[in-house]
């Protein structure tokens, strides 16, 4: 399980969606069909960025039933560790890349009589695939999509054409806001809520649904943490008997992999729990950035998620 199966692909198109977002299309290198997937799934894209091998999750936005063409959209992040910059600057049509099999941590509940969707900015991508799936199965849904301004409102025109009045758009620069409380108070019984977007938006929906009495299991969110750049540090891997330097622009997991340690992972965004690692000892601060460990586990100082979290101190020993 530590090394998920991968697929060799070729980049068939790179499309400028707007000034911040590019769309990438992949087909299988051997010409065979790609695996079908379910709306909300993501793939890990491997990038050989000089010395660094990055593996970054991106939501699939193409139709889950289209096995010839996978599509992802990447928003450029000038302050990030360089993954999105690599995609924007280095990846060209015709390039060969490697991706993981689709994995879904943001699946539709197929029993729901209605799906209420909240998207913020680039968080629209998993909904694009889910909506194609729901259209194919006559599902009942409604999308509320908040963007900064018209120019950055990716895919609004396509959505307006395909889903018509089931799309509701909100522009920050026109002071338009989603009326969460009204919407969350007027849904038919059994509705499921889905949210993907900036952290404050996700946290707001979680808070309001709880306050308004929504069952927890009817509220779904896609929350990939990003592996952020940070101060370099050193980690000792006791089981592997190795000491690894983690550089400013690499994650702890990437540094372990570069040292030849076969560490488990699945989402690489602090969401799935697969890379959870026991901390044997440390003398500083564990910088938790994941959405997996609960407050008690964080306070205990005994667990860390190396895909996104970092360390500040001089000694960190992991059971890996």
């Amino acid at each position: 399980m530590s090394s998920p199966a991968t697929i060799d692909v070729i980049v068939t198109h790179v499309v400028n969606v707007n000034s911040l977002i590019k769309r990438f299309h992949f087909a299988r290198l051997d010409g065979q069909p790609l695996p079908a997937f379910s709306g909300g799934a993501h793939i890990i894209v491997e990038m050989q960025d000089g010395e660094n091998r990055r593996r970054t999750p991106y939501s699939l936005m193409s139709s889950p039933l289209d096995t010839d063409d996978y599509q992802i959209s990447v928003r450029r992040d000038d302050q990030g560790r360089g993954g999105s910059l690599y995609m924007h600057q280095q990846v060209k049509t015709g390039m060969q890349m490697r991706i993981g099999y689709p994995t879904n941590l943001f699946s539709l509940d197929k029993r729901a009589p209605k799906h209420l969707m909240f998207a913020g900015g680039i968080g629209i991508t998993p909904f694009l695939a889910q909506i194609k799936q729901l259209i194919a199965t006559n599902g009942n849904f409604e999308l509320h999509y908040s963007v900064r301004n018209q120019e950055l409102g990716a895919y609004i025109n396509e959505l307006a054409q395909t889903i018509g009045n089931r799309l509701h758009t909100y522009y920050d620069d026109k002071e338009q806001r989603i009326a969460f409380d009204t919407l969350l108070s007027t849904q038919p019984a059994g509705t499921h809520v889905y949210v993907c977007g900036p952290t404050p938006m996700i946290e707001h929906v979680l808070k309001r649904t709880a306050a308004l009495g929504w069952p927890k299991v009817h509220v779904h969110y896609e929350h990939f943490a990003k592996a952020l750049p940070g101060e370099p540090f050193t980690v000792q891997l006791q089981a592997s008997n190795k000491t690894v330097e983690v550089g400013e622009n690499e994650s702890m997991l990437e540094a372990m992999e570069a040292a030849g340690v076969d560490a488990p992972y699945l989402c690489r965004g602090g969401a799935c729990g697969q890379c959870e690692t026991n901390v044997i000892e440390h003398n500083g601060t564990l910088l938790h950035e994941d959405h997996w460990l609960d407050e008690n586990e964080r306070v205990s100082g005994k667990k860390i998620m190396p895909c996104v979290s970092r360390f500040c101190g001089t000694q960190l020993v992991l059971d890996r």
Partner: protein
Amino acid sequence: MATKACDLPFRKETFRDDFTFRNSPETIKRAPFPFDKDSYMYAVNMELHKDGRAGTAFENPFDVDEHYVAEMQDRALVLNEDPLRCQSLPHMKLAGWDVLELLMTHKASSYPEWFSLTRDGNQWHWINRPMGIDQKFTFGDETTLPYEPLEYITRQAQGDFCVLDERDGNLWMDAGIVTTQADWSLDFDIGMNFFEWHAPVPLAHEKGIFTRALKYLLTIQQGNPARRLNWTMTVNPRLDTSPENYHVWGPENIQITPENVGEKLFLRIELQSFWRLPRSNAMLFPIRCYLLSMQDLSTVPKWATRMHRVLQTLPPEIASYKGLDGYRDIAIEWLSQFDNGAPTSSGSYPD
């Protein structure tokens, strides 16, 4: 040239009434013997389900053996008597198509001489030579098949199949076909979650086995199926040991004697695998049953020795849960003739 039915290596036999089921010597040796050491305890004994060594039940992802056609005839008899052995809750339709695709594509690529699948978009053509089936249909349109997709394809595949929906960090038994089971009922378990349907198992809950197993299962993704082996024992080579039919097979549990134990008592092995399904994100959980009589086991000295030691040291709670109390001592006594006390080699394959 078309293969004639009489050229195919499938036995004509029964799993009820006169019990004409027999294993050939080759089939005995390729069985997935479940004990890798001389004792048994519950564990999260999962591993990747990769194509295994040639000449074993692990060689292909969905094993087809000499009992295939007869097992499918037995399944048809069970379904005819009790249609509730195959059920699917309404939200599992998409998963049914996923199962059909998975089984057809694997069978056609593993056994091209027996199965073929031709696809032109959604127009599919399926040929199953051992069962004499030639079916053209539209993928995604169940009106073009004689049964719902799940039932259609699992009437042509050995073993039981449970289809588990993933929701709320749990797995739910929301569809399946169950006719070759070790005393459990799909009709009873349908709609239950992973902890609910495992509730009757002794000792394992306290050891945290199910919490860890679920955590592992939820991370299984497309392209990386996993498997584990489970086991129990059955009197007579009966596939359908269901709670619904307990009145038929229950009384047989007290018919084992020192004279008939070799032929009448069977080790029942379950090769369980776990597959993430693409369109539905559901999990397919096939449970394939292999039957080996004590006599069959005695043809592989290491296995007979090990079976003897496992039964001797088995915790009483597990023996009772598996229903072995009526014949365990008789089996131990009979198997002792194959145990000379010497150590067995590691692993579970024959020497």
